[in-house]
């Protein structure tokens, strides 16, 4: 079985790889690209720890065949900050204690980014709905919702 040659853009950088057909996007991101922000927890698309943004949409990368990255733009948590300047979502999570152990955080923030990209002024119910696919065992979600709400405020200037 031959490897598939794929070309894609990851966090703004062009990239080329040869991947076997059975590789998942999550495995490629973590093991080939060494971007270990996205996490494998359930591996079944149930927990959201592996959430990245591909083609502008938040996806569970544990369920996406890596070959599908071909021709796509992929954004991971590592791609949010601009140099030393954190993204407003990251700033808000720091300010409002949206993390404890941090394991769910990369996926949570990527889901929040997709939410805010599609709805710049979500109310609490819409935020909870937007992160329904991201589980946190530590925080009880309250601070996460507050962080996302604060980020929405900060982003009114646009970014």
């Amino acid at each position, binding site marked *: *079985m031959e490897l*598939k040659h794929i070309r894609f853009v990851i966090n703004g950088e062009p990239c080329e790889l040869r991947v*076997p*057909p*059975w*590789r*998942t996007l999550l*495995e490629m991101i973590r093991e080939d690209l060494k971007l270990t922000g996205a996490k*494998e927890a359930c*591996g*079944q*698309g*149930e927990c*959201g720890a592996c*959430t990245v943004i591909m083609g502008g*949409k*938040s*996806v*569970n990368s544990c*369920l*996406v*065949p890596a*070959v*599908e990255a071909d021709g796509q733009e992929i954004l991971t948590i590592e791609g949010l900050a601009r140099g030393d300047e954190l993204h407003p979502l990251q700033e808000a999570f720091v300010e409002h204690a949206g993390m404890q152990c941090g394991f769910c955080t990369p996926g949570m923030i990527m*889901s929040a980014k*997709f*939410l805010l990209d599609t709805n710049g002024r979500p109310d609490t119910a819409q935020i909870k*709905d*937007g992160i*329904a*696919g*991201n589980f946190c065992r530590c925080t009880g979600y309250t601070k996460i919702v507050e962080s996302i709400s604060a980020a929405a405020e900060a982003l009114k200037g646009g970014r």
Partner: protein
Amino acid sequence: MAISYKRLPKFDYVKPIDMQDALDLLGRSEKGKAILYAGGTDVIPKIKTRSISAPDVLIDLKGLPGLDGISYDDQKGLTIGALASIYSVAHSPVVRARFPLIAQAASTIASTQIQNRGTIVGNICNAVPSADSAPALLCLGAEAVCISRTGERHIGLRDFFTGPGRTALEADELVTEIRIPPLSGKGVYHKLSPRSRMDLAVVGVAVFVDTGNGEFKDVRIGLGAVSPTPMRALGAEAVLKGERIGDQVIQEAARKASKEASPIDDHRASAEYRRLMVEVLVKRALKQVALN
């Protein structure tokens, strides 16, 4: 407890850009050796848990043209293409205008991440009894347009589901779109589950009614997760059709619906609880659409 492997078994991957090629490959392959997928949110987990055996090849449908549309015309009604994602259906202005019940039901499925990848057609083809899009589509008389190398056929959704996880599709057939004929009325889908989105429905109830002059002109009631396949509660519908809208007749219909269901005990709920909740939710849904 089910074992789930984190690593997928080995298989090949193809992404045909021509429907004929896709159908030929499907038709040539031994049953189960070529597996179709669009979003992969059911197929990939099933391969990981080994509940379906590793295919020789995974056929990615997303290269096929003309399958991702959502459109409406007064003749055919609403058409949802095989590649239309659950998210796009839930947010489609066309679906929200013509059949808001479908958009609402779609919005209850899993998470945003799953909805961005998964498709309504995939939800139907996976055919779990609790499929959230099924009760609504059954209420609306939807049909699946299916093709193979030998031709095309239309299967009404009531004949499409043949058992838990089983459909009337032949091994060499695929669904290109779902069609919902024009129909007037109002509907709602109630999904009973511990967590609103990520859990499967313990009980799913969709109702669609057309009322006028204080009467039920037409009533459809779809039930999910309470029988081997998603079903219509035809007896309950008959109780209401032509009757004046009122609490008592709604109560009677709800009770009838709960008797028509044939739920099982499982780790999510007992059959007894499901039966009780069918009555509660049918009553709630009917009141919501008929008494407003």
